């Protein structure tokens, strides 16, 4: 740990030791770029499992009984799909992947503040993924209580994996939290303490602001999940009753592992703890994708981002407010209605800074020199999708409407638009944008456009009908709807349609993975800085940047991150490390 810091100060101009062996280069690497790629690949592989599990669910819902999927499998698939997508894919890839890769490069640092801790972070993440999938090997299989793991259901006989699956799940999540904390401490320390000369906080690219704030949210929100997990684990293993009330099943008082009765616990407390983590988690995922989209829009529309300072303060406002909205997930949980009023208000308030960001993106595009590159497709698609998702949120944020819509497919549709499709679009746009930086080659544009249109249009085909199902009263987490008179034939047909659409969209996602692999070997080689971007990560002497990022001196920053199309400048972009006097006039730096 000390060494890295000494390096930062002293080795400008000196040579550093570069790892030689395969093991130190690729497995036990402390280079932030390798760690990022490890995070990328592992989380994408985990995400593939998540997609396959969603196919299992859709096949059962579209064609009940046809594929011999048991209720246990169905509920286990729900749980694992939710956990994998929210935590092991999105949190890991946006913070572990993009965060690790971009923070040191964009800030002009040699590496993360604590490279060894960073390496440990990705290894713990790998361990948590192994533990997660190991739950398929324990008796009873993984838990089937849904990704929210609500007690008392999660510990009741009859729920799949109520005995060992839940233990594995909590262990895996705990290890993930340790991994996240190690990574998160690194990101925050690096952003705060090891920027290049001239890189003030208000000259940081927005994506760094976003990842930084998302990490802060994570460091403050994950403790609640850890505590809830520990207490649930103790309820399961040593017979305490933190969350387990007096509860009767088949006329029997439910007992703990020692045969004594559970009594007096509060299931509502678990929901509070879980959502104190769960809602900020939405912003842990949302903020990095806001940041990625800001970068893409500014760079590919060749224009300074509209209202940089406003963007930053909006982000800070979202970060603060995200901690006081959690109970809007609990309007029907039985808490005091006065609380419902409070949380509905804060929920609607958080829409204001979010809307500011959307307006600023649109105003950035206004009269800009828009290049319709593949990343731009994804960025614009993201704005559309996110607005649709946000409008759905207005319905769910109001108590009186939410009571009707709670636990229906309206909710499923809403959060898949916000948390499913929007991140995929931002993420794929980001991968397309930074792929040349990582590999020196571009991704295939044709495949990229097919993937974009398939995902973008497919998302509407899947999730808009889901909103409709929800308005029709179809409840989520039902294994099938046989014999339910109020679920009409047309709603059944709609389920079939959604299943067919989601299979197509699911298969299209593999096109994206194929594109990554194919382009890695066969993609078109490109010159340095192919997008003519201003931010520091493109200004390294070699592309991809080598170990240590900058071979000799660290760069010095002279201007804000988005000096595109500056009037009077010889080119339509001025990198952050170009001195002010180097170009004639009208530099539009922010401070």
């Amino acid at each position, binding site marked *: *740990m*000390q060494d*890295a*810091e*000494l390096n930062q100060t002293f080795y400008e101009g000196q040579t550093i030791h570069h790892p030689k062996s395969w093991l130190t280069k690729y497995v036990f690497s402390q280079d932030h770029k390798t760690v990022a790629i490890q995070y990328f690949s592992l989380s994408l592989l985990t995400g593939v499992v998540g997609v396959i599990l969603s196919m299992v669910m859709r096949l059962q819902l579209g064609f009940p009984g046809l594929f011999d999927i048991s209720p246990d499998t169905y509920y286990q698939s729900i749980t694992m799909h939710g956990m994998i997508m929210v935590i092991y894919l999105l949190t890991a890839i946006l913070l572990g992947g993009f965060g690790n890769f971009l923070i040191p490069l964009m800030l002009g640092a040699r590496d993360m*503040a*604590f490279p060894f801790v960073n390496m440990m972070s990705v290894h713990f993440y790998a361990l948590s993924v192994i533990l997660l999938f190991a739950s398929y090997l324990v008796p009873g299989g993984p838990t089937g209580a849904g990704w929210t793991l609500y007690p008392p259901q999660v510990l009741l006989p009859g729920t799949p994996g109520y005995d060992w699956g839940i233990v594995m799940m909590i262990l895996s999540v705990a290890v993930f939290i340790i991994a996240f*904390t190690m990574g*998160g*401490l*690194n990101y*925050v*320390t690096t952003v*705060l*303490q*090891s*920027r*290049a*000369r*001239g*890189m*003030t*906080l*208000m*000259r940081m690219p927005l994506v760094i602001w976003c990842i930084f704030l998302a990490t802060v949210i994570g*460091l*403050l929100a*994950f*403790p*609640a999940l*850890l*505590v*809830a997990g*520990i*207490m649930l684990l*103790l309820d399961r293993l*040593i*017979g*305490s*009753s*933190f969350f387990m009330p007096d509860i009767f099943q088949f006329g029997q008082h439910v007992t*703990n592992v*020692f045969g*004594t009765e559970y*009594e*007096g*616990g*509060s299931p509502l*407390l678990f929901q*509070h*703890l879980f959502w*104190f983590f769960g809602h900020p988690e939405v912003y842990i995922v949302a903020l990095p994708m806001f940041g990625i989209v800001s970068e893409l829009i500014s760079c590919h529309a060749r224009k300074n981002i509209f209202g940089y300072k406003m963007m930053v303060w909006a982000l800070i406002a979202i970060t603060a407010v995200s901690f006081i909205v959690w109970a809007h997930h609990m309007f029907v949980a039985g808490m005091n209605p006065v609380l419902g009023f409070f949380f509905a208000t804060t929920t609607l308030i958080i829409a204001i800074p979010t809307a500011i960001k959307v307006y600023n993106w649109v105003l950035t595009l206004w009269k800009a020199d828009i290049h319709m590159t593949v990343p731009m497709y994804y960025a614009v698609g993201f704005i559309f999708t996110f607005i649709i998702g946000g409008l759905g949120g207005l319905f769910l944020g109001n108590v009186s409407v939410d009571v009707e819509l709670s636990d229906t497919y309206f909710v499923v549709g809403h959060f898949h638009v916000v948390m499913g499709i929007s991140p995929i679009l931002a993420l794929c746009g980001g991968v397309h944008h930074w792929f040349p930086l990582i590999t020196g080659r571009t991704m295939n544009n044709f495949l990229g456009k097919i993937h974009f249109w398939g995902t973008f249009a497919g998302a509407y085909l899947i999730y808009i009908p889901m909103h409709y199902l929800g308005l029709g009263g179809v409840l989520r987490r039902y294994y099938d709807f046989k014999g339910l008179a109020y679920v009409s034939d047309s709603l059944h047909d709609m389920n079939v349609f959604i299943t067919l659409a989601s299979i197509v969209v699911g298969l299209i996602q593999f096109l994206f993975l194929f594109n990554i692999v194919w382009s890695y070997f066969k993609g078109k080689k490109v010159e340095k800085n192919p997008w003519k971007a201003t931010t520091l990560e493109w200004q390294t002497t070699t592309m991809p940047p080598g170990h240590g990022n900058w071979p000799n001196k660290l760069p010095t*920053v002279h201007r804000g991150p988005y000096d595109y199309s500056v009037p009077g400048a010889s080119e339509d972009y001025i990198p952050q490390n170009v001195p002010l006097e180097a170009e004639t006039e009208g530099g539009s730096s922010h401070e």
Partner: protein
Amino acid sequence: MNDLVKDWSSDVSTFKIRWSKAMMWIFLISDTFIFGTFLISYMAIRLTVVDSWPDTSQVFALHVGGTDVPLLLIAIMTFILISSSGTMAIAVNAANKKDKRKTGIFMLLTVLGGIAFVSMQAFEWTKLIVDEGIRPWGNDFGAQQFGSFFFMITGFHGLHVLIGVIYLSIVSKRVLAGRYDGIDDYQIVEVAGLYWHFVDLVWVFIFAFFYLW
């Protein structure tokens, strides 16, 4: 206010301290949320359970000289832990003056305080489990959550003390071995001190909310 924002958003580093110290502060803020969530959960459950909450001065009494002295053991434990914060502060002060020997000795005293605390906690647990028959799933004094919260919160805190003991022993050994002489940097002692003071501070809250309430 404007100047404050300007200072914080200046280039290179926001806070003019070493990276390790910054990281320890950030970690401790995160850890505060863990203990805060534990204590808030405890308060929430204590306010909602149907059974009466045990009388803590009775449960935690020590039988000395024919009478029950309430909270005697826990008072001694608290005194020792707070004192160990004092010796740690002296160690940090000595480290700033580059007094290797004094730093090492007072860190080892701190370690001794930590070991004493953990041993007395082990004694307390043994007494409560073996003599009083308190279990996570029930006890003779009142609400069964009393036992589970007690073992969980003091256990988690005790784990922190134990980690601190190991952490401080390693650092003090390195200080005495002169490992930090070469790079002329004793700030690692201060970072370890931050952790130790945090663990003590948390104990004050646990003591107030669990034993005195």
